């Protein structure tokens, strides 16, 4: 349980830290997203109910800090990030047995792919609201860039979180009908 609260705290810190990390000019100004990597790690490491709680917390934060209300209109409904995180974290949770056996490579790659999917989903939603469907090379790079960065970061973040798990004496064994 301590590990779960540590993950919540790390999500909060990472979400705020993202505001102070500049975009990468050499990668089409791709932004660095740390929160999804932590959430997807939590999806593999935590039991189902706690995984949903973590996804809910990250989604609420993302909605609150990024959604813009302009001229009385909301571009992306509050809750949409919760839904996206919930679905993607649920998919990642399905790969938990592989993770429990110590195989991380698929999860690292998927963390990148899913991070890009979050950015893509946001883009599709704003495109739907604003109209004029634009899909050029820049858009693809802005979608793929954060995913590539997340993919590169994932092994380090996973290793760090694994270490925190050990420090907090967290057991990674899949649950058998109980939370802890």
């Amino acid at each position, binding site marked *: 349980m301590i590990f779960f609260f540590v993950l919540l705290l790390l999500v909060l810190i990472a979400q705020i830290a*993202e505001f102070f990390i500049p975009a990468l000019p050499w990668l089409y100004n791709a932004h660095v997203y740390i929160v999804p990597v932590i959430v997807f790690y939590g999806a593999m490491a935590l039991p189902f109910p706690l995984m949903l709680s973590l996804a809910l917390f990250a989604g609420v934060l993302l*909605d609150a800090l990024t959604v813009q209300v302009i001229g009385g209109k*909301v571009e992306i409904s509050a809750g949409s990030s919760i839904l996206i995180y919930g679905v993607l974290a649920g998919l990642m949770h399905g790969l938990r047995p592989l993770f429990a056996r110590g195989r991380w490579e698929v999860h690292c790659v998927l963390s990148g792919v899913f991070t890009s999917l979050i950015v893509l989903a*946001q883009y599709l939603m704003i495109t739907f609201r*604003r109209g004029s469907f634009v899909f050029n090379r820049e858009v693809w790079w*802005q979608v793929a860039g954060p995913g590539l960065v997340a993919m590169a970061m994932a092994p380090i973040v996973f290793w760090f979180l694994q270490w925190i798990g050990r420090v907090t004496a967290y057991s990674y064994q899949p649950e058998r009908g109980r939370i802890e």
Partner: protein
Amino acid sequence: MSRTNIIALLIFGAILGYFLTFGPTTTQKFKTGVYQLLAPFFTGGSGLKKQLTSVRSGLKSLDQLEHENANLQVENRELRATNQGLRDAENEVNRLRHALNYRERSVFKLIAAEIVARDSSTWWRTVTINRGRRDGIEIDMPVATDEGLIGKITTVSDSISVVLLISDENCRVAAKVEGSREQGIVSGERVTTGLTPLLNLNFLSKQADLKPGQKVYTSGVGGVFPSGLLIGSVKTFRVRELDGQAQVTPVVDLSHLEDVFVVTGRK
């Protein structure tokens, strides 16, 4: 699926459903509330970032000094570091004096603010400033520097506010072009990859024939932005099927903002 998991899924669904029912007003309140809670982290984070940047630049100059002057005494290095610190302080004093002068000579009533955080998302271009409701900031107030317009306020908490930059596609500004009767709407582009984003001035007449370098100002139409704030200068002009469109280079370097002013009205 176990009973615990089903209950967890139902609770998750219920909370999700609750959030999805939020209208614009509730969403704004929710956003404001979260910003209010996180305001100390933003202001604290901004201070920490400044300290880290200062330490990093200090180390850089130390490396250079070591490389160039291997035989210098430790005392000499300390003196140079102190000197560097004083120069930084002098630069800051000059910057603030410049800002203060602008506030005094401006025809607008201005509230000085500092950028504490930049946008963290890919598709919206915003910055967070260290002024809020307590300082008299309200939604839709224009934000400018001594060079020109940078955006408008979209979210206000007690101590911090979010500014939507003019480089965002959603920030639309009624504008006029210097030396012509042309008026149009300036807005940003959805996707920008360069460090200096370009703006689009739409709905011009086809006969506008604007020349590069012509200045673009706010026209005051719409009531959000007062007239006479410089936005940028025309880069190119092209005739489209129904109207004319100019690309405008913003006068303010939006990637290096530090001190800004919130325009609260005219003097």
